[in-house]
C-alpha cells in the first residue's frame, strides 16, 4: 500500500514539473495530491445517451467504477477558449495517462455533446479520432443524445446552461453555454466542477490523484 501511495505522489510531482508547466495564466504551484480534501458536491445525474457506435448507453455506467472527468461540449463550438479548450485539456490528460499505468487503469474521460442534431454518433466517432492523439491511455468515451428531449434532464441534472444563439451562423458557433467539466469519483459523486480559470490540467491531475489516495486510505482502513 505504501508503495502505491509513493507512486501516486511521485508521479504527481513529476507530472506537474515535466508535462504541465506553470505559466502566466496559471501562475502558482499546484497542491500536493492528498494534502487537501474534495467535498461531495452532489450525485452525478443519470440518463440515456448514444455512444459512437449508435448504441444506447446509461450515463451511470460512465460515471461509476472509475474516476471520471465529464465534459459537456459541442463540436461546432468555435470559441477557442470554450469547448476546444476543454477538449484540449482532456486530450492532455489522455496523453499523460498513456504514460501512467495508475491513471490509465483508474481514470475515464467522457465528452457529452449537447448538440445532438449535428453531433451524431458517426460525427462524434470521427471527431474523437481527431482529438484523441494517444492510442493507448485511459478510457475516453464520446456520447451524444438521441434527441434534445432526452438530453434536457441530463443538462438539468448537471446545471449545464445551454441556449441557442439568435444568429445560428455566429462565428463562435450556434450555441452558447456554461463551460463545465465535472470530476466524479468512483461511486458516482461529483467532487469538483471546473470552468475557465480553474480547468488547469495540473489541478485536475492533483484532484484525480487526491481521490486515488483517498481510496487507498479507505481500503487500508
Amino acid at each position, binding site marked *: 500500500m505504501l508503495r502505491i501511495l509513493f507512486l501516486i505522489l511521485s508521479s504527481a510531482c513529476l507530472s506537474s514539473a515535466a508535462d504541465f508547466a506553470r505559466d*502566466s*495564466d*496559471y*501562475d*502558482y504551484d*499546484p*497542491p500536493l495530491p492528498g*494534502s*487537501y480534501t474534495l*467535498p*461531495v*458536491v*452532489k450525485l452525478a445525474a443519470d440518463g440515456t445517451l448514444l455512444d459512437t457506435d449508435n448504441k444506447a448507453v446509461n450515463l451511470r455506467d460512465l460515471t461509476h467504477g472509475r474516476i471520471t472527468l465529464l465534459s459537456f461540449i459541442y463540436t461546432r463550438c468555435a*470559441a*477557442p*477558449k*470554450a469547448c476546444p*479548450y476543454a477538449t*484540449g485539456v482532456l486530450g492532455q490528460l489522455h496523453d499523460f495517462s498513456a504514460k501512467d499505468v495508475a491513471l490509465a487503469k483508474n481514470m475515464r474521460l467522457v465528452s457529452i455533446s*449537447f448538440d445532438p442534431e449535428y453531433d451524431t454518433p458517426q460525427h462524434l466517432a470521427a471527431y474523437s479520432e481527431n482529438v484523441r492523439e494517444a492510442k493507448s491511455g485511459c478510457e475516453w468515451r464520446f456520447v451524444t443524445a438521441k434527441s*434534445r428531449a432526452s438530453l*434536457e434532464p441530463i*443538462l*438539468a441534472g448537471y*446545471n*449545464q*446552461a*445551454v*441556449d*441557442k*444563439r*439568435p444568429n445560428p451562423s*455566429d462565428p*463562435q458557433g450556434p450555441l*452558447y*453555454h*456554461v*463551460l*463545465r467539466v465535472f470530476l466524479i469519483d468512483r461511486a458516482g459523486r461529483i467532487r469538483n*466542477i*471546473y*470552468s*475557465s*480559470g*480553474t480547468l488547469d490540467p495540473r*489541478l485536475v491531475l*492533483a484532484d484525480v490523484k487526491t481521490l486515488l489516495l483517498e481510496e487507498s486510505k479507505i481500503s487500508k482502513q
Partner: protein
Amino acid sequence: MFVDQRAEAYEFNCFNPASSGGPAGNEAGGAADETCSSPYLARIEGQEEFVYVWTLGVEGLGDGADKLVSVDVKPGSPTYGKVVSSVSVEGRNEAHHAGFTDDRRQLWCAGLENSRVFIFDVHTDPSKPKLTKTIDNFAETTGGAVGPHGAYALPGRVLIPCLSNAKDKGGRTALVEYSNDGNYIMTHWLPTKDDARGAAGAQFADGYGYDARVLPRKNALLTSSFTGWNNYTMDFGKMTSDPEAMKHFGQTMVMWDFHTRQPKKVFQVPGAPLEIRWAWGDQHNYAFTATALGSKLWLVYADDHGDWQAKDVAPIGEVKGGVLPVDISLSADDKTLFVDCFGDGKCRVFDVSDPQHPKQIYEKQIGKQVNMVSQSWDGKRLYFTSSLLARWDKKGADNEQFLRAYGWDGKELKPTFDLDFTALKLGRAHHMLFGSTKLGPNRTTIASR
C-alpha cells in the same frame, strides 16, 4: 435548457483582457458589468439594463418587508430610472449583500439577522426576478455559521462568507459553499490562533470574516473581517459607547490557497477591513481594501519574491474620528478607486495608478449617508445606495434612503437620476447588482491555447 429568448451571445467560456487590445478588461465590443463582480461570473454585454437593489424593509413603510427592487437603467427606455419590479420576501432579515451564480441565472440575497438566503430566478425574465427558493436552515446545515454576508460566484457553486457563529454570536465565523442548485457543500472556518491550520501569522488570527474574493491566475483567495451578530444587530450609538463591544472587530485579512481552501497567511490589518477589490490587469497582483474604523486604504500585494504582503497606503479623509469608509469600487483599468464614506456621506476618489501611493483627486457629497457604490465596466456610470445596517443607519433627517445614479467623466460625478426609497415606501437601499438580457463570457484570464 434550450431557450431562444436572448438577443445576444451567452457564452460562458473565458475572457482574456490582454488580447483585447485595450486596457485591462476594456475589450472591443463594449462589454460591460460591475467592476467588482466575480471573475467566474458571466459578464454583461453592452450596458447594464437593470440595477437590482437588495432592500431592507422598514416597519410601517409599505409592506415593511425586505425586497428585491429592480430599476430600469436602459438608456432611452420610457421607464429609465424607475422601479419596474419589487419582490418582497418574508419579513425583515437584515437584508445585506447578494450575488449571482456563475451562469447568472440566479441571484442569492442574504439576510444577516436570521441567516436566511433568498434565491431569485433572474434568467427567465431579468426585469422581473422571481423568488424560487429560501434557505432557512443555514446555521443548522453549516455547523453553526451565521450571518451570511452575500454570495460569490464560483464554478457551479457559490461561496458565502459569513460574519458570525451560532454559539456566541461573536466574530468567529466561516466561509460556506453551496452548489448552484442550493445544496450545502462545506464549511471552512476562518483561522484562529488555536486553529491556524498551518497559516503563517497565526499569532494575529482572530477568526473574523467579511468579504471573500479570488484572483484566479494566482490561485489566491483573500478574505477580510468585520464584526459579529452581537455588534451588527446593536444600536450604533450604543455600540460605539460600549468599550467592550468596540473590542470585537476584525483586525485581519487572510490569504488562502483557493483550490484547497487552506489558509496560508494571516495579515494584521487593524480597524475592520471590509470590501476587497482585486485589480484586473494581467500583471497586477494586488487588491485594495478600506478599514472602516481605521479610515485607511490598505494594499495586499505580491512582493518582488512573489510573497503576499499587506500595508496601509493612504489615509481616507483627514477627519478626526475617521469617516467610516465602507464600500469601494476599482475601475476596470485599475487606475481609479471610488471610496464611499458613511460618516460624512461623501464619495472620495483616488488615483491608484501607483497602487503603493494612492492620491485623492476628487470628492463628492452623495447624501447625508452613503454605503454602497457600483461602477459600470466602462467607468462611465456609478450608482450609490444609502443603508449600512438597520440599526447603524443615521436617525431623523439624516436617514436618507436612496439609489442615486451619476455619470463619471474622469473629473467629476454628475447626477443622472435619484430614487427616494422612503418616499417610494420601499425601505433601506443596500446592495446593488447589475442585470441584463445580454450576457457573455466570464472574465477569467486564460489566453487562447
